[in-house]
């Protein structure tokens, strides 16, 4: 009996060694997203974006994209990427704890995350402390790259640039469609995302000469938004600039309809308004919303690779690709490319390789001019946004006009006339 037990122990020991040996052939990348909690639906979509990118790197694909044509990372003897997910539940303190867990226990070489700006802020602090590269795929609060962190990189364009896009769009609309866009009111949720957006919306409203008649900030976890919308209505806005996550985006649209509130345009700050759940949950009530976007499937008109990737994504998940998953995908490709060029899993080498990143527009599935990080802030300097509109339940690019696949519907039709 004792012998058999010893044998069993030896077997276990042997088994654990083999698994350790195996572990060295894989590059462990930590990914922190909201996999439970109010933003969980977005979190899973983001994770799938990352996993799809990892699969493309790990297998052979005929795509014009870094690492697609080879198996694994060629400079690291074909080592494959292994994604280790973490769940921050929409809570900053848990985001930080998850980053620590991934670094100290899971021994990841880099982290991607965390969607919610407020959580990216805390999780990246943990990465900074341990000296592990942190690639942020989809948090757009400008302050994140203003902190001067050494290990923090951001691929997505931030709210500063994307907020300015709104006013370029309005200027173009004035010129082309002779619209009246005064006054504007802001309707933002009150965590870092909404508060930061407000700062930039106000900055550019002043710069481009659009008066703001009022600002309404609301708690994102509201069970109802009636008083907020009443307040908004009392400012008589022609245009509402709205910043919401998915739950409150759905709730606000329902309440607009209930209270019959229909300004000329609702210009949304992506996030909740471009989540696949948004059109699914609201059906035709989602129509005519304008949102800034970083991605749309119809961009494939100019870049066929986008359709290939989007179809792959839809086939695996049953959900359409969106601005969140495409950015998570892109951040993963950027990171994998850097690790491959670093020829090492040493944090310092990866850091240097990230700094030297230089991807071209046609290697990306984004409407960007490329990926190249600013030497000081580590913000991707070549990012660019578009504006989409929901028409018949689908997102279409309506601006910039040269990329548009549909004409913009303006003004937002009254609820009773739909």
């Amino acid at each position: 009996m004792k012998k058999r037990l010893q044998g069993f122990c030896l077997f276990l020991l042997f088994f654990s060694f083999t698994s350790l040996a195996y572990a060295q052939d894989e590059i462990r990348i930590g990914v922190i997203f909201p996999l439970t909690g109010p933003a969980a639906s977005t979190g899973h979509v983001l994770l799938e974006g990352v996993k799809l990118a990892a699969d493309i790197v790990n297998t052979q694909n005929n795509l014009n994209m870094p690492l697609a044509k080879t198996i694994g990372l060629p400079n690291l003897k074909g080592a494959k990427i292994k994604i280790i997910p973490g769940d921050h539940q929409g809570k900053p303190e848990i985001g930080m704890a998850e980053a620590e867990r991934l670094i100290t226990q899971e021994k990841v070489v880099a982290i991607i995350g965390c969607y919610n700006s407020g959580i990216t802020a805390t999780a990246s602090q943990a990465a900074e402390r341990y000296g592990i590269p942190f690639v942020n795929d989809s948090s757009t609060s400008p302050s994140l790259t203003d902190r001067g962190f050494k290990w923090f990189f951001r691929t997505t364009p931030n709210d500063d640039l994307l907020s300015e896009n709104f006013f370029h769009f309005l200027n173009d609309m004035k010129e082309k469609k002779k619209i009246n866009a005064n006054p504007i009111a802001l309707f933002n949720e009150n965590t870092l995302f909404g508060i930061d957006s407000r700062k930039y919306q106000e900055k550019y409203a002043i710069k481009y000469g659009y008066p703001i008649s009022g600002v309404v900030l609301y708690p994102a976890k509201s069970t109802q938004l009636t008083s907020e919308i009443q307040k908004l209505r009392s400012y008589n806005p022609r245009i509402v600039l709205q910043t919401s996550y998915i739950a409150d985006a759905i709730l606000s649209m329902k309440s607009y309809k209930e209270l019959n509130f229909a300004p000329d345009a609702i210009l949304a700050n992506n996030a909740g308004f471009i989540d696949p759940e948004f059109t699914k949950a609201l059906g035709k009530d989602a129509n005519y919303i304008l949102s800034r976007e970083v991605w749309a499937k119809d961009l494939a008109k100019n870049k066929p690779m986008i359709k290939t990737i989007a179809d792959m994504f839809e086939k695996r998940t049953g959900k359409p690709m969106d601005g969140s998953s495409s950015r998570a995908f892109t951040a993963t490709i950027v990171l994998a490319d850097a690790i491959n060029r670093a020829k090492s899993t040493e944090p310092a080498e990866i850091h240097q390789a990230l700094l030297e990143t230089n991807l071209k527009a046609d290697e990306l599935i984004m409407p960007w001019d490329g990926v190249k990080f600013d030497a000081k802030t580590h913000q991707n300097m070549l990012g660019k946004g578009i504006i989409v509109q929901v028409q018949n339940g689908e997102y279409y690019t309506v601006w910039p006009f040269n990329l548009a696949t549909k004409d913009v519907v303006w003004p937002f039709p009254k609820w009773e006339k739909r």
Partner: protein
Amino acid sequence: MEGVFIQTLVSGLLIGFLYALIAVGLTMIFGMMDIVNFAHGDYLMVAMYFSYWFFVLFGMDPLYSLPAVTLLLFGLGILTYYLLIKPIINAPMLSQIFVTFGVLIFLRGLAQFLWKVDYRMIPQTVLSGNIHLGDVYIGIPQLTAAAGAIICNGLLLWFLKKTRLGMALEAVSEDKEAARLMGINSDRMFALAWGIGIATVGVAGALLTSFYYVFPEVGANFGLIAFVVVALGGFGSVTGAFAAGIIVGLVEVMSGFLIAPQFKFMFVLALYLAVVFIRPQGLLGKK
């Protein structure tokens, strides 16, 4: 401005009735056996999923499936009592808290496992549309929900005060031992209280589903408010919960409108704190 004010007032009232209905079950269970059901909001979530699935699988509008959902939740309440609550009824408070908190985590996890994290919504129900009175718009689903909440609360009060069974429930809640001496089976009364308490969130969930989205954590937002309502109305007081629900609905909406929306929960919770300091037993609670 006046129209906007009235509109806000009406909206506050409508949601207040619903808060009251959600809180009534919580306060009843507490009043009967001094157990705080932390999973209360999550039973609401379960009810909403039931309504949603009745719609998707059988094409039944949430309004028509309401009796079925209520019955299912009644059963679930009784099941919860016999499986989980009965063994800990005389246990220390901490164990009781852990049990109901465990139910909360279990239900959320189960919902996420079974139905994933998607936001689900019934796009068109028989109740869609709104009524237009001057400057005031009232959503028909919201109005129906408020009416349903009033009826349900009324029925519950009638049941507790006027029927023999209801009076037996009240008796057990007043004094368990004395009731037992009078030949009332307190065990069955407890089970009944759980059944009814959970059935009321069944009604609330069914009503809510015609205008609110469903996802695994939808109970969290409503659960927190239910606790404030119960504390404000007085632990164990059904009429108190009804009044408090309306007050919380109005305070939330009016402070959001008149002061600033980002602080609306602050006012709701400040109200709660004020009650705890000035009148710890709540508005209509017994000392």
